[in-house]
């Protein structure tokens, strides 16, 4: 039996050392708390309240809506760039079916982003500057050995992230009408995700990287700080986000 601390210093309770049997039950029976405590002891660069260059999404329902607005901005900017044809050769050479799908996604995400901007009014966060330098707009899918994502792989990542994000943010919403609103959008994102996945790999629409296919059959939702760790990779300096109220 071995406990693998996650980047934690040697623990003063001696978890790396052999323990007496009774103590073993005490530690392992509370394994989930141990995992949490070890992680709490981490001093991870991303897990910070003090980085002055991160823009926080805010608190309360408005904070959740701004969080959603930020992610929709990211998606809208991505598909706008894909479908403009001005960036990269994949879209220009894509077949009619894939063009039509990407056009629809461009339209839907633009509508989602514009919707939140209008609904939030003066409470809306700023227009975010994106960074898609990690995406190769010439490639339909990620080329073997390439450091850059292909267009469909990036689309899949954004859609899956959006679904996990909405589902993981639901618990922070206090106004039931906002909860319903989020629900109206997340199922469309899930439809998007399934279609993009099928374009890449047959019958991957609910693959185990995004759905727990062994015990619950549920989407693997993510809390806002976890989502933003990924989203921030596609946001330029000055537009990277934090969600300190929604840990």
């Amino acid at each position, binding site marked *: 039996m071995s406990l693998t601390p996650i980047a934690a210093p040697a623990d003063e309770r001696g978890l790396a050392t052999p323990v007496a049997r009774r103590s073993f*039950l005490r530690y392992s029976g509370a394994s989930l708390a141990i995992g949490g405590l070890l992680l709490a002891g981490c001093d991870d660069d991303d897990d910070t309240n003090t980085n002055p260059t991160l823009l926080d999404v805010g608190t309360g329902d408005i904070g959740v809506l701004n969080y959603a607005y930020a992610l929709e901005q990211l998606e809208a900017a991505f598909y*706008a760039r894909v479908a403009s044809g001005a960036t990269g050769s994949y879209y220009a050479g894509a077949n009619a079916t894939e063009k039509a799908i990407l056009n*629809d996604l461009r*339209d839907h995400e633009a509508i*989602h982003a514009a919707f939140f901007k209008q609904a939030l009014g003066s409470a809306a966060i700023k227009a975010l500057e994106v960074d898609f330098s990690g995406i190769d707009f010439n490639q339909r899918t990620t080329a073997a050995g390439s450091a850059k994502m292909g267009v469909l792989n990036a689309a899949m990542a954004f859609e899956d992230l959006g679904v996990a994000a909405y589902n993981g943010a639901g618990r922070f919403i206090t106004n039931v009408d906002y909860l319903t*609103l989020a*629900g109206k959008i997340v199922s469309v994102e899930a439809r998007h995700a399934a279609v993009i996945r099928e374009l890449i790999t047959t*019958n991957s629409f*609910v693959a185990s990287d995004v759905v727990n296919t062994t015990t619950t059959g549920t989407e693997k939702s993510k809390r806002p700080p976890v989502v933003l760790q990924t989203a921030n990779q596609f946001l330029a300096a000055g537009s990277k986000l934090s969600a300190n109220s929604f*840990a």
Partner: protein
Amino acid sequence: MDLFQIIDDIAKVDTEVYDRFDSRRAVFRNFLGYGKKVTATAIPLAVSSLFNKAYGQTSALPQIVIDTLNLALQLEYLEKYFYQTALASNILNAEQRDAFTIILNDENLHIATLRGVLQGSAIADPTRSGFDYTGSQNKRRAALFPTLGGTTDPTTGNFTSVADVLTLGQQVVDTGVRAYKGGAANLITQKDILETALNIHSVEARHVARIRSFRRGGIQSATAPKSWITPDETTATPTLPNNGVPGAPAAVGPYVAGTPAAKFPAENNVMQGLTPFDVQALTPTGGSATAGAEAFDEPLDAVTVKAIAKNFAADPAALFN
């Protein structure tokens, strides 16, 4: 907070506290698997669930939560036996077969998950014979889909038309997505249950996106239906009888309004927000005329969901009440 000190303190009054967390054998399963899922941010949840598990201190669920989850559970059984029968009928091609097998596995897990939350409050398994996918309600009336069970014994019969399987499958799962969406509001006080329901809801949406792709002849087909709901489906899809459910609209279906219609509009709705405005107007220049309606799915109220689902119960009085 010193968790270990707390446990030690409890041990002073309950010498068996350690055993309550896990039997010795179960320790290894949870030890190896559960700890990995925890993040620092989930500590309060982890600790409270740890003690809930130890002492069974789960407080009774509010009735609205029980009712919402039981309606979801009945819909999951409707889906489960639908997919099971479709597979047993041996009419699907290999790609459809693989997809339906994947979906059926998810539905079985959804059932297990919902039953795990509901415990003794869960409705009984209706079994295959609790459903009649022809819509004849076990020969009480003319079949809506005679190929989906035949006319001799429609509660046990196999399916003979792939097109009808896909058509009803799409309608049932789109209804399920609307039902979960409408029911989420009832779960707002139970954060973990809410998140679980949202996480089922999105998986069902992925399922129906796939089914729709089969209906159009494959993921590379450019014909209808799209994997997102298009506004024409609201007017083009035949509606279903409402089975006399009190308060249900006269005509019900997966793409038309529920009740009240203002809160549960038809799927071709484009007015969104707490102070509604037209989202079609937000479509980019050169974009599609249907994007506004497609970009938002609509919830459905429990009354209307029941009215729809009763069409596929063998005994409309026995289910979806």
